[in-house]
């Protein structure tokens, strides 16, 4: 006898949340953290006066933004083994997502750095700071405020995009949903349940974004 849908949804809630907590969320968080480091590096390279350095960053950003994430993921997981590089599903996913975030966030960070008035660089310089120290202590904190909204968008997109990792066998929220759906044949119910969980995660992130923006806005006239 088939069990009622409500029971199935309730019973699958735990595995789906487990998929979110053990898969989706750590995958998104680690990829975003690594991606931001890549992005900052690419943004600074892009701002370099050395044309080779800025050209490399420009090419990287162009390739990342100009090709589908799914294709990038497949190149790493299914493509690399053919040249002898076998990467496990989790590292493959983290590499692909980090590189992807790196490309998108680089432009955000670059624009944010450029939005800080030149006088701030000069003020840092005049109190004796090097370029590096001025960047870290004066420019980036101001750039951070400007880049929170667009970077939050990048992060929210990333959380949803981690569902693509199910296609390279990473156990996360959506893969668990697929498995239960295949077993119970209740595709509609399971996929909507998965969608609702993604939505709840993103709602929580939006509220985090809101309070972060508020915090960083404390030194701006309203």
């Amino acid at each position, binding site marked *: 006898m088939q069990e009622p849908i409500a029971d199935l949804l309730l019973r699958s809630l735990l595995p789906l949340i487990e998929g979110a907590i053990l898969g989706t969320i750590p995958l998104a968080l680690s990829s975003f953290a690594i991606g931001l480091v890549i992005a900052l590096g690419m943004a600074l390279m892009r701002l370099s006066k050395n044309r080779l350095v800025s050209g490399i960053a420009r090419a990287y950003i162009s390739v990342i933004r100009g090709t589908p994430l799914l294709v990038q993921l497949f190149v790493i997981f299914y493509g690399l083994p053919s040249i002898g590089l076998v990467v496990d599903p989790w590292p493959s996913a983290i590499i692909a997502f980090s590189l992807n975030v790196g490309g998108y966030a680089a432009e955000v960070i670059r624009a944010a750095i450029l939005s800080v008035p030149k006088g*701030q660089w*000069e*003020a840092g*310089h*005049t109190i004796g700071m090097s370029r590096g*120290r001025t960047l870290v202590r004066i420019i980036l904190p*101001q750039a951070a405020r400007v880049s929170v909204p667009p970077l939050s968008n990048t992060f929210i997109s990333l959380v949803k995009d981690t569902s693509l990792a199910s296609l390279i066998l990473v156990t996360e929220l959506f893969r668990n949903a697929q498995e239960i759906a295949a077993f119970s044949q209740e595709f509609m119910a399971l996929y909507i349940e998965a969608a609702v969980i993604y939505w709840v995660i993103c709602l929580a992130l939006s509220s985090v974004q809101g309070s972060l923006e508020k915090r960083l806005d404390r*030194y701006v006239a309203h």
Partner: protein
Amino acid sequence: MSPTDPIAADPSGADPSPAGQALLTVRGLSKRFGDNEVLKSIDLTVQPGQIVALIGPSGSGKTTVLRSLNGLEVPDAGIADVAGEVHVDFAASPSRAEINALRDRSAMVFQHFNLFPHKTVLENVIEGPVQVQKRSKVDATADALALLARVGLSDKRDAYPFELSGGQQQRVGIVRALALKPQLLLFDEPTSSLDPELVGDVLDVIRELAGEGWTMLIVTHELQFAKQVADQVVFMDGGRVVEHGHPRDVLVSPQHERTRQFLRRLLDR
């Protein structure tokens, strides 16, 4: 410099030999931006404790002189010497370290204040002493509070710059410069972006500093102020020093037609 100094009327001349070691000596400072020659061999001598007002039409190069001394521009040629201790020859393509050594002798007060908007007033002031000069935070804070008290901003220590008026922001800008304990204070049109009624407060602070023996180089359009406070006025035009000398000479009975024109135009406003 005596008012009868014959050099005052000689744009190309070197300064008279000073009694002691000059605090700042600039010789042959030249700078071009592309085709635009903004400084054409500028000479300048500032004695310890002197207040020098740099005046002249916009584009005359006065701001570039200040910026060159503070390492914000690198001249193509000329020398700058501070107290015989730091000596930079710009023609010899000095290293960043040499330029920084020159910069560290002075501190700049900007026309647009350039306070750090994400830091409180106190944090703005102690940033340089603590982060760069590696002084203890307690020590730097005590100094900063004393300086803020002197410009009447004790109660604003925890305010962010956006919460202050322009005049208050500029006073913080001055305190931020003083906190570095520089040998030379550089003011780049410190009152030009202030509402007229706020100009007085800032000029009063500068006047007070003048009385305490600070050596200052001030780019300004406030001729009345220059006349009262400056020991030496330097009139620049087209990247050259046209004339310099005692304020009475340069501002009241200028020798050069170009200076007269400039003064007339300012007074006619």
